[in-house]
């Protein structure tokens, strides 16, 4: 991960602070719906491609309502692609049975399942990213805690999120000072690495001690209090129920296929 990733990270955080129709939906409703979305998408048979396409509606709708830039999201999905690609790319080698045909051109089962994996990947990753971009970490943690996440863990998530930039900036400063003192581009040896990361570790631990002192001074009693807890509205329930209904319908019937058959060319050939 390079520094650019951190700038990006900050942007996702900024997007979470916006106030749009998508952001105003209760975090619990969005978290639940997104989870239902991912489980439904992953429950399809492994050669399925066309039936998955209607599901793109969910991330796109949230993205548009939440005014999340499409290009930004696309780049983030692309950055995460290599692992899924590395595993999926073997499917065309192992499964060579013809599974579909377009005219005289046949497609093997392996390529279909490859396409299926990549479509699932794009759908699930974009849904998770849109969820964060439309909710923000604080609201999301509060929502997850209400849904049963242990309080210690919810607090832990907020802490990691809060101090990511602080510790990363500290690490970046140490690296920069090291580079400035080096005559040429410097690659860390294991010994120097141990000292550098070890120092960063000790500094982090010291910082944690200071934070704890400051928290105690402000009356910390083991709970973090969140202002303006969201109230559950009917529109939130409608949001979750409506989307889940759509997921179920799209799971039972191949909507894309049905749309294709409506057209004279698609049905006739």
């Amino acid at each position, binding site marked *: 991960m390079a520094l650019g990733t951190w700038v990006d990270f900050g942007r996702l955080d900024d997007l979470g602070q916006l106030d749009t129709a998508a952001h105003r939906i209760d975090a619990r409703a969005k978290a639940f719906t997104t989870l239902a979305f991912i489980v439904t998408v*992953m429950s399809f048979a492994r050669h399925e491609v066309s039936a998955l396409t209607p599901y793109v509606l969910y991330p796109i709708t949230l993205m548009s309502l939440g005014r999340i830039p499409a290009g930004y999201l696309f780049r983030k999905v692309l950055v995460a692609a290599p692992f899924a690609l590395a595993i999926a790319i073997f499917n065309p080698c192992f499964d060579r049975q013809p599974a579909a045909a377009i005219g005289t051109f046949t497609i093997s089962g392996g390529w279909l399942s490859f396409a299926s994996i990549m479509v*699932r990947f794009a759908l699930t990753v974009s849904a998770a990213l849109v969820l*964060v971009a439309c909710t923000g970490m604080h609201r999301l943690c509060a929502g997850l805690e209400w849904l049963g996440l242990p309080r210690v863990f919810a607090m832990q998530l907020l802490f990691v999120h809060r101090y990511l930039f602080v510790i990363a900036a500290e690490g970046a400063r140490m690296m920069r000072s090291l580079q400035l003192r080096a005559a040429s581009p410097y690659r860390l040896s294991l010994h120097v690495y141990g000292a550098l990361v070890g120092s960063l570790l000790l500094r982090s631990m010291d910082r944690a001690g200071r934070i704890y002192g400051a928290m105690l001074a402000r009356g910390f009693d083991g709970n973090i209090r969140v202002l303006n807890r969201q109230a559950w509205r009917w529109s939130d329930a409608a949001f979750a129920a409506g989307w889940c209904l759509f997921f179920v319908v799209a799971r039972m019937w191949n909507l894309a296929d049905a749309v294709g058959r409506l057209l004279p060319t698609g049905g006739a050939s």
Partner: protein
Amino acid sequence: MHMADALISPAVGGTLWAATAGLLLHSARNIRDTAQGQLVPMMGVLGAFIFTAQMINFAIPGTGSSGHLGGGLLLAILLGPHAAFLVMASVLTVQALFFADGGLLALGCNIFNLGFLPAFIAYPLVYRIIAQSTSSRASAAAIAAAVVGLQLGALSVVIETQASGITELPFGAFILLMSPIHLAIGVVEGLATAAVVAFVRQARPYAMPELSAQSPAPRFARAIFPGLLLSALLVGGAGSWFASTRPDGLEWSLARASRQQGATGLSSTVHHRLAALQQKTAWWPDYQVRTRATPPEALTVKQAEPWPAVAPGTSIAGLVGGTLTLGLATLIGIVLKPRRTAV
């Protein structure tokens, strides 16, 4: 080694989610009961530290590549397994949410592979046994524990992926692919952990719990340890041996796999069980997990509609419909997008 959502089935993802949720509750309760207030900010800041440490690389001599810290083991050494597990779980959650590293459905798998295995297996069963008061033993312990943790993690990734039945990679070939590379990564990660531990031991000995407390490793750990180390060495060693004596190992398993149509006995039975479970618990009546590895007797329900259906008509309808749906969805997105003036 982050698992992606696209590679696992809901049954596997759900099972690991449940397992991880149980571990999370257990760890959270343990932390709350021991009531170490200062542990709360400490865990949070160390989570952020792990993020940063993963971005700092050191050069591996003689190669062009570089390595970095994994995190789980170091955290377990500093904070103990329960807190380490919680911190790793939070780090992985933030990675899944913000960096799309791994996915939400695969989060359970990732927390299990990268949190549970190093903190609850490699740390108590390998590190605690080897590490004593001398620093050379601590270094050896860190390397051994990192190797064991990563080998188990790689094995776990293979099993989870195979049980999901989405990839076509046969079990043996997948293991051969994963094991040797993770042996190397394990050694590198162990070196990194050892270097940091050595520095902290020297600079601030009282920060290392095992030096201040001097508590012996649990007895059951001593009993399991030799077997665990042996099996890790066997798996790693055999994997590397296969990889080196059979440079065409992948192709060889490829050829075998194409004859035998798929996975080995273990993975297919696991997959069948899960598929059966999935079919029982599915909400949707027409739910089917189709694998070509399925033996004919298990196909009784599915024979009614053979798959793959090589009918140009359906393929074209799917293609046209899919494209159209995507276009439609994009259009809806554009229409729904609030105008700038509406702010």
